[in-house]
């Protein structure tokens, strides 16, 4: 799978089958996605058709794929090695003939050297050059010429002419050119494939992270090792330290420390308690644990993520299809041009006819054209996946690069949805810290979310005893002999016996306010707020620095939204929006010509997400599979989004550079070659370098930018 023509051949062959609904082949990733009706056509039939078309169908992962890949890798190395050594030898012989031109060379020795060259070039052509010939044959059978056709033609012509001239005892020989073509083209192709494979490694790392066997503990306590595919719901599994948890599961006993970086891109250790859910794909970094499977491997979050990534990588966006179409015409044009150049030189200067035609055939590089876009997209997608952002539609990155406005739904994106307590005021000379510490001490035994919010703020410095919880009202406890209460104003007032006038200012928001007091009176009041996510402020700043407008659209109270907007420095913040009003807001923006990136929590906001140019959802757990957004943020960090937009913009720049290079190279090199100004060996180097340059340029996208962070 190297060129546009290859992917078209597969697409055409498979879609001709009855019962196949959709076929999509991605040339950069060498992956095919097929929707078919198993009632009407068997998978085996599809695979047969693919192999008839001249390609080896392989399952995406597993032992079979790995061993075939290894065999191909070995064969490629051997081909390159033979071609390289053969090239050096032939070059030496042919150089003797060239160099001796002025002084004359013994005809016997010259003939001897030519025969030696033939002896070496033949195995190189047959063994090392085989991929070009089989590729060209396949293209001709399918009547859709790819880049192998001109190369194979050039090799055959050069070799045949040299053989004839050797036995005729007159005329030029091109054994050096033949071996050199093969060596440079093979080496270029090899490096290009390695780079492309590495760009994909994010998906592969995910898919390969699954262990090959898992220890299942039977009812009688015996342990057996089974394949992850055999895990059933309810199985008790033993996970050693450092191993990947293969399926979504519940922690069976004790405490676990896991790292979900494979799923979210964030390498943070998370502590889980008994019966807390663990996502398949997280790594057990703590002590060995036992878990109860809640699903099978194919339903885990890991499997959903891998599935989505693969779907994206198998699809071909519109821009790629256009480039592919152009590339196939380009090959036909090349053949015509080479024939024309050859004919011209036969009449003008016969000695230069063959080199010129060869140079035209070899120098053209349709692959640079058809690889320019998909290589860049694959690299960018893979890198974002490592950061924790899944791209679910191939066109999404292109659109993301052009976004003007980011509209953020507040809850679950900017704010965590977890309550955060903030101090409103203190009295009687109590400090802020003292008030929080006292509150934390009183809440030390409670599981209530508000209690957790207090405990997050301060560690209790004093010990509270006789703790009592009054549902819906608050807690009471004794600290250093004095009775304290923390809860609703009414609840605390019952203890303090203060006159109502003291609290009149607070009575309005008494519902959300929390009071702290002891028998002497009211000590402090707190308010509950929806806490900003850590990093939200930084992310908003980053987005603004990148020249993007930011707007908040929320269904929450206007005051709450205003408060968040003030903290973030966002000018435009609208609250109290119904889903319809949000949709209208986004549509209005879009029709005004601005491109909107809508960020939502991915729940119940499908229409709004769909109305925007690009949509991004905060995806958690198994919701990943159902999410309808273009982008899925797996790690809840808006900072990743800023990084993604930056990445998408760089991707667009790289695609432009690649296309520009492919165009300039081909437009420049072909006429030069036709004029006979490019030696055949320069042509081979130029064409390999050209496609390599495009792929390496794209590979820059896969690297994390160290400088920008």
């Amino acid at each position: 799978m190297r060129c546009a023509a290859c992917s078209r051949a597969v697409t055409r062959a498979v879609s001709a089958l009855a019962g196949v609904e959709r076929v999509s082949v991605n040339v950069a990733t060498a992956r095919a996605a097929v929707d078919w009706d198993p009632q009407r056509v068997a998978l085996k039939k599809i695979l047969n058709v693919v192999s008839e078309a001249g390609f080896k169908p392989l399952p995406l992962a597993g032992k079979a794929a790995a061993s075939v890949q290894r065999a191909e890798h070995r064969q490629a190395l051997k081909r390159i090695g033979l071609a390289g050594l053969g090239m050096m030898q032939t070059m030496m012989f042919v150089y003797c003939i060239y160099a001796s031109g002025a002084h004359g060379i013994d005809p016997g020795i010259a003939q001897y050297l030519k025969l030696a060259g033939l002896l070496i070039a033949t195995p190189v052509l047959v063994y090392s050059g085989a991929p070009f010939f089989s590729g060209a044959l396949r293209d001709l059978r399918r009547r859709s010429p790819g880049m192998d056709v001109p190369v194979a033609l050039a090799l055959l012509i050069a070799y045949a002419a040299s053989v004839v001239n050797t036995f005729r005892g007159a005329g030029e020989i091109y054994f050096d050119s033949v071996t050199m073509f093969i060596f440079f083209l093979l080496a270029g192709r090899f490096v290009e494939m390695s780079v492309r494979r590495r760009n994909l490694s994010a998906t592969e790392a995910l898919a390969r992270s699954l262990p090959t066997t898992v220890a299942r503990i039977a009812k009688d306590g015996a342990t057996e090792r089974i394949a992850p595919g055999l895990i059933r719901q309810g199985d008790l599994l033993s996970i050693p330290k450092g191993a990947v948890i293969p399926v979504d599961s519940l922690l069976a006993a004790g405490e676990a420390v896991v790292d979900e970086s494979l799923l979210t891109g964030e390498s943070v250790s998370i502590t889980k308690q008994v019966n807390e859910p663990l996502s398949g794909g997280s790594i057990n970094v703590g002590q060995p644990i036992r878990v109860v499977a809640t699903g099978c491997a194919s339903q885990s979050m890991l499997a959903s993520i891998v599935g989505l990534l693969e779907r994206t990588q198998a699809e071909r966006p519109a821009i790629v299809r256009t480039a592919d179409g152009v590339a196939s015409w380009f090959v036909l044009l090349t053949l015509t041009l080479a024939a024309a150049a050859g004919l011209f030189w036969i009449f003008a200067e016969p000695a230069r006819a063959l080199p010129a035609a060869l140079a035209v055939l070899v120098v053209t590089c349709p692959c640079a054209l058809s690889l320019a876009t998909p290589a860049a997209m694959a690299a960018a997608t893979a890198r974002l996946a490592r950061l924790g952002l899944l791209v679910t539609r191939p066109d999404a990155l292109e659109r993301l690069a052009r976004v003007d406005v980011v509209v953020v739904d507040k809850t679950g994106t900017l704010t965590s949805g977890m309550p955060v307590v903030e101090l409103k005021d203190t009295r009687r000379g109590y400090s802020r810290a003292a008030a929080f510490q006292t509150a934390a001490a009183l809440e030390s035994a409670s599981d209530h979310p508000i209690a957790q919010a207090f405990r997050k703020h301060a560690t209790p410095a004093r010990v509270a005893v006789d703790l009592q919880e009054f549902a819906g009202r608050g807690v009471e406890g004794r600290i250093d002999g004095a009775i304290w209460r923390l809860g609703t104003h009414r609840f605390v007032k019952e203890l303090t016996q203060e006159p109502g006038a003291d609290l009149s200012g607070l009575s309005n928001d008494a519902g959300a306010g929390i009071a702290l007091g002891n028998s002497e009176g009211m000590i402090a009041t707190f308010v509950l707020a929806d806490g900003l996510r850590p990093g939200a402020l930084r992310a908003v700043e980053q987005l603004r620095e990148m020249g993007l407008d930011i707007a908040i659209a929320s269904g929450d109270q206007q005051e709450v939204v205003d408060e968040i907007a003030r903290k973030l420095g966002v000018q435009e913040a609208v609250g109290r929006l119904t889903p319809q009003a949000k949709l209208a807001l986004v549509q209005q923006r879009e029709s005004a010509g601005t491109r909107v990136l809508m960020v939502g929590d991915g729940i119940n906001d499908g229409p709004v997400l769909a109305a925007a140019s690009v949509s991004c959802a905060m995806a958690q757990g198994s919701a990943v599979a159902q999410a309808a957004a273009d982008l899925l943020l797996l790690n809840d960090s808006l900072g990743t989004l800023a990084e993604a937009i930056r990445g998408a913009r760089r991707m667009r720049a790289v695609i432009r550079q690649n296309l520009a290079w492919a165009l300039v190279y081909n437009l420049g090199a072909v006429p030069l070659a036709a004029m006979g100004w490019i030696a055949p060996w320069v042509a081979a180097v130029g064409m390999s370098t050209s496609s390599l340059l495009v792929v390496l340029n794209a590979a820059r996208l896969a690297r994390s930018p160290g400088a920008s962070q």
Partner: protein
Amino acid sequence: MNIVFLLIPLGMGLMVAAVAALFWAVNSGQYDDLEDASRPVLDSEDGQPPSELPIERQQG
């Protein structure tokens, strides 16, 4: 100049030897994985029996 007739087959013989050596090296798996082979040394903890090294699992 007759020495040329001997030296050229000799050179070709050397090339055949070089090709044979390369094929042997590739076939014996020396170039299969150039990256991971360097890692187990860092991963293994002191006192851990070598049979638990990840490399063992891959070969098995």
